[in-house]
């Protein structure tokens, strides 16, 4: 670790992994509720478990992004963090607020939660992914602004690199687009149009900048390839991200009351969205091939290459599969959407966070560069178990989605939703089995942190 203040990243990473475990446990509950409909009913109905599952995902990724930023910004800026104390204070505020929100979801009916948190004053709740009470949303804004102040001050006083600039643009974009979460008109169409300004412009916009910047940082550190080359790649990748992704928002504007011309704009631009993800694959593999050093942390390099590949498959390929409007007409809001969402989030965002954790954690725990070989092998087993688990979750959901689309929407005698759900239950069972494999992978991942042994040294 080159700068003392990088140490604030550690609690962020630990919290991220802890919340990740919670997310997966609730994922398994949801998967079981798909086939055993009354499981935990009425104590934890599906909508509550889903809210916990998706909100924990968002929060642990935010913890991961913040930890990544606190770790890499001092090194990029070649200076200590502006205020490590502020970073730690915000950590506890965010963790407590997040925990209280999840407890609120689980302990009181959602309508009661809305009432006691004053949702009537500024109604923002009850929309997918934005279920948090309005006061939690305000808390998120305060934490993120404090975080942005801290890192921006650090960058301003130190060396400015392309990596830190792109990371900052991504993080500021994250904060700015979140403000649309507070706009909730009665007009459902307007509500939906601007709801996507949070959701789409996050995950298919500014979050990709964050991902690409973190990936570039890891590749600079682990491959020793000239920074100039990596930064050029970074610019081209994120240029393609925004050139395709901003108008690509149109692929959400096909069937929600918006004008028909979005079917053209959305189809054409979102069809190009896989390009930046494919470039990330080429980028990661090229840089590793051209490496000028043998970094002892093989696990981190595996995560870095893995995130590029899985993001391309999940976001790029599975996204393209249903993005053209004539296809989407039949697949919109089906299990195809769920399949895409799972692999895209895992590949692009869960894996980039695990990549930076894998790279940074050994140093944060006082090692020179890497964990012992034994620990790394265990971590790589975790990588494969989770990744293969996710591939099968995605494939089974895709199978379910194809059948659902056929039986409910395409066939000559469309059948009711619940009739179709019963017919495709086998796929949901198999998805649950794949989910258990994923959980095992996650447990192996956590266990790998507790494997000691002699630090692996560079071979070259």
């Amino acid at each position, binding site marked *: 670790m080159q700068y003392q203040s990088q140490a604030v990243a550690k609690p962020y990473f630990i919290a991220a992994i802890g919340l990740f475990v919670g997310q997966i446990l609730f994922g398994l509950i949801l998967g079981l509720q798909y086939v055993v409909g009354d499981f935990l*009913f*009425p104590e934890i109905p*599906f*909508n509550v478990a889903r809210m916990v599952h998706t909100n924990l995902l968002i929060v642990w990724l935010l913890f991961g992004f913040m930890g990544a930023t606190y770790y890499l910004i001092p090194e990029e800026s070649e200076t200590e963090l502006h205020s490590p104390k502020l970073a730690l204070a915000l950590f506890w505020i965010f963790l407590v607020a997040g925990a209280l929100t999840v407890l609120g979801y689980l302990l009181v009916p959602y309508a009661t939660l*809305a009432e006691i948190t004053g949702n009537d004053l500024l109604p923002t709740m009850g929309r997918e992914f934005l279920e948090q009470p309005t006061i939690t949303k305000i808390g998120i804004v305060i934490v993120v602004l404090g975080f942005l102040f801290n890192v921006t001050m650090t960058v301003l006083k130190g060396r400015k690199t392309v990596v830190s600039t792109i990371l900052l643009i991504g993080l500021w974009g994250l904060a700015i687009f979140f403000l649309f979460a507070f706009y909730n008109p009665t007009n459902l169409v307007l509500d939906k149009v601007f709801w996507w300004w949070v959701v789409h412009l996050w995950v298919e916009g500014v979050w990709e900048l964050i991902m690409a910047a973190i990936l570039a940082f890891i590749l600079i550190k682990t491959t020793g390839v000239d920074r100039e080359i990596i930064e050029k790649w970074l610019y081209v990748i*994120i240029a393609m991200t925004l050139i395709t992704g901003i108008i690509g928002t149109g692929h959400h504007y096909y*069937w929600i009351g918006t004008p028909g011309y979005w079917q053209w704009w959305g189809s054409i631009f979102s069809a190009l969205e896989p390009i930046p993800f494919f470039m990330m694959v080429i980028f990661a593999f090229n840089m590793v091939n051209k490496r000028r050093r043998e970094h002892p942390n093989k696990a981190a390099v595996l995560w870095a290459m893995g995130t590029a590949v899985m993001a391309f498959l999940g976001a790029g390929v599975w996204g393209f599969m249903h993005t053209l409007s004539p296809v989407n*007409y039949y697949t919109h*809001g089906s299990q195809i959407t769920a399949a895409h969402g799972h692999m895209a989030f895992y590949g692009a965002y869960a894996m980039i966070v695990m990549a930076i954790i894998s790279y940074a954690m050994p140093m944060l725990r006082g090692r020179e560069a890497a964990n012992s070989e034994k620990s790394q092998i265990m971590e790589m087993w975790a990588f494969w178990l989770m990744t293969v688990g996710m591939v099968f979750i995605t494939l089974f959901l895709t199978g379910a989605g194809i059948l659902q689309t056929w039986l409910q929407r395409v066939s000559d005698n469309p059948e009711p*939703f619940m009739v179709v759900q019963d017919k495709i239950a086998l796929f949901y069972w198999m998805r649950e089995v794949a989910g258990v494999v994923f959980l095992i992978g996650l447990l192996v991942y956590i266990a790998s942190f507790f494997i000691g042994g002699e630090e692996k040294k560079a071979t070259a």
Partner: protein
Amino acid sequence: MSGGFTKAMARNIFYGGSVFFILVFLALTFDTTTALPKRDNRAAINETVTLGKKVWEDNNCIGCHTLLGEGAYFAPELGNVYIRFGNSTEAIKGFIAGRPKDGIPGRRSMPQFNLSAEELEAIAQFLKYTSEINTENWPPNIQG
């Protein structure tokens, strides 16, 4: 990526391309908002529909259902439920009010939300309003 293509060129493509497409997106969004009054059934929005959307949100209906295809995929699409239920707000109200408190053994069941008569009417009117939005003929058929 070497030779004539420099980092400065890559940077310019990023900043120039992003700003250009943000402007295009803003222009399209502006055009959309001016086209919406003819499509989004806003004339039907009254106090009851407004309350209905609040009931919809306060009970996190989107956590199981889709509405115009967006939401969770655990329970039926509701954008066209008014039509599927025979253009009847009474049928919608009856369904919601009649959910068993303890569920149905082994099967998915909507929770009993204990809505008041006013809230039931409001959610039904909200779903009627939603069904009359011009969605380019989505969903493909009555089953949603």
